């Protein structure tokens, strides 16, 4: 008896409510469903958690306050002065990605952050937003970001392209990091689960490994949301503090 192992089947997009306006496939998919759940959960946590605010917080208020303070501290530390104006955006982004990663770890659910188009859309939003903020705050002076100070003109020929390149690579690194981590982790979980099913008697070993990997994945889920948010803060700092 052989058991077919399909570790990539979990990333399949399924249309729940087919919807094709003007020939565009805008169906409500399992990915969109998980995004909705994540957004609703974040909103519920913050709104319900702080509804009956007490001096000594209850469980949910504690969670809401901890996440608020964690992100607030991150923005203040990394984005510098004036960065707090963008706190709502960074907080939403962090919580959305965190919930997306964690919900994906629930058995039989779906990880929307394991799709490059989702993470790239998030990263592109950050990239375009930061660029607009930079130009809005500094005008054409923002372009001096690409010209390192105190460098001979001859070297500028080489350095300006490098600076430009490292600026335009940002949305790619930001999105690929999150996507690759999620994809790799979930594939690994599925492969070891498949081993467990196909190896008689010694199946307990892959199951043990799977349990260990699962804990690692919980850590990675939180870590990648954190990295995404902190890099957003660092990009914001670039745009806000040019001089």
């Amino acid at each position, binding site marked *: 008896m052989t058991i077919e192992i399909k570790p990539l089947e979990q990333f399949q997009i399924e249309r729940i409510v087919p919807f094709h306006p003007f020939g565009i496939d805008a169906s409500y998919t399992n990915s969109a469903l998980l995004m909705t759940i994540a957004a609703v959960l974040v909103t519920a946590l913050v709104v319900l958690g702080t509804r009956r605010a007490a001096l*000594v917080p209850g469980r949910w208020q504690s969670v809401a306050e901890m996440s608020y303070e964690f992100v607030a501290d991150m923005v203040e530390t990394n984005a*510098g*002065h004036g960065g707090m104006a963008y706190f709502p955006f960074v907080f939403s982004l962090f919580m959305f990605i965190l919930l997306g990663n964690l919900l994906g770890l629930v058995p039989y659910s779906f990880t929307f952050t394991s799709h490059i188009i989702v993470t790239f859309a998030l990263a592109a939003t950050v990239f375009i937003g930061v660029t607009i903020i930079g130009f809005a705050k500094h005008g054409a002076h923002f372009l001096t970001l690409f010209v390192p100070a105190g460098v001979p003109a001859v070297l500028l020929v080489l350095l300006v392209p490098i600076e430009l390149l490292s600026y335009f*690579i940002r949305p790619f*690194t930001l999105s690929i990091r999150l996507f690759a981590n999620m994809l790799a982790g979930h594939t690994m979980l599925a492969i070891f689960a498949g081993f467990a099913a196909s190896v008689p008697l010694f199946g307990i070993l892959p199951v043990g490994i799977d349990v260990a990997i699962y804990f690692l994945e919980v850590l990675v889920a939180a*870590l990648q949301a*954190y990295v995404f948010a902190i890099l957003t803060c660092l990009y914001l700092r*670039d745009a806000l503090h040019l001089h």
Partner: protein
Amino acid sequence: MTDGDAKDPLRELQRRIDGAQRALDAQERARGPRQGAKPMGSGLALASRIAIELVVAILVATGLGWAFDRWLGTQPWGMVVMFFLGIAAGMVNVWRAVAGMGMAVGYRQPDGTDAAKDRWDDED
């Protein structure tokens, strides 16, 4: 976190917390934005950042070079040049991430100080 059964000690505690918070805030403002501060798990976060940085920089740059070549018909020069530029950009990014300058493009610090130096001073 303990359950407060007496109200007055709690209020007293809150006043002390507020006072300490204000003092801390003032101190914080005096120092300016903290550079290279280390929240939990930041070592792992850093490792995760730099691992991808170099690879993606080279891939994206080479891909851009290939696209330029297709567009301008300059095979293979765009790809060759962009490949090496990608290596350079990736290394610069990794170096900046490690040196505690964040991902800042450009070599300047917002407040004109050397972030890497500040960080080492803090840790001593």
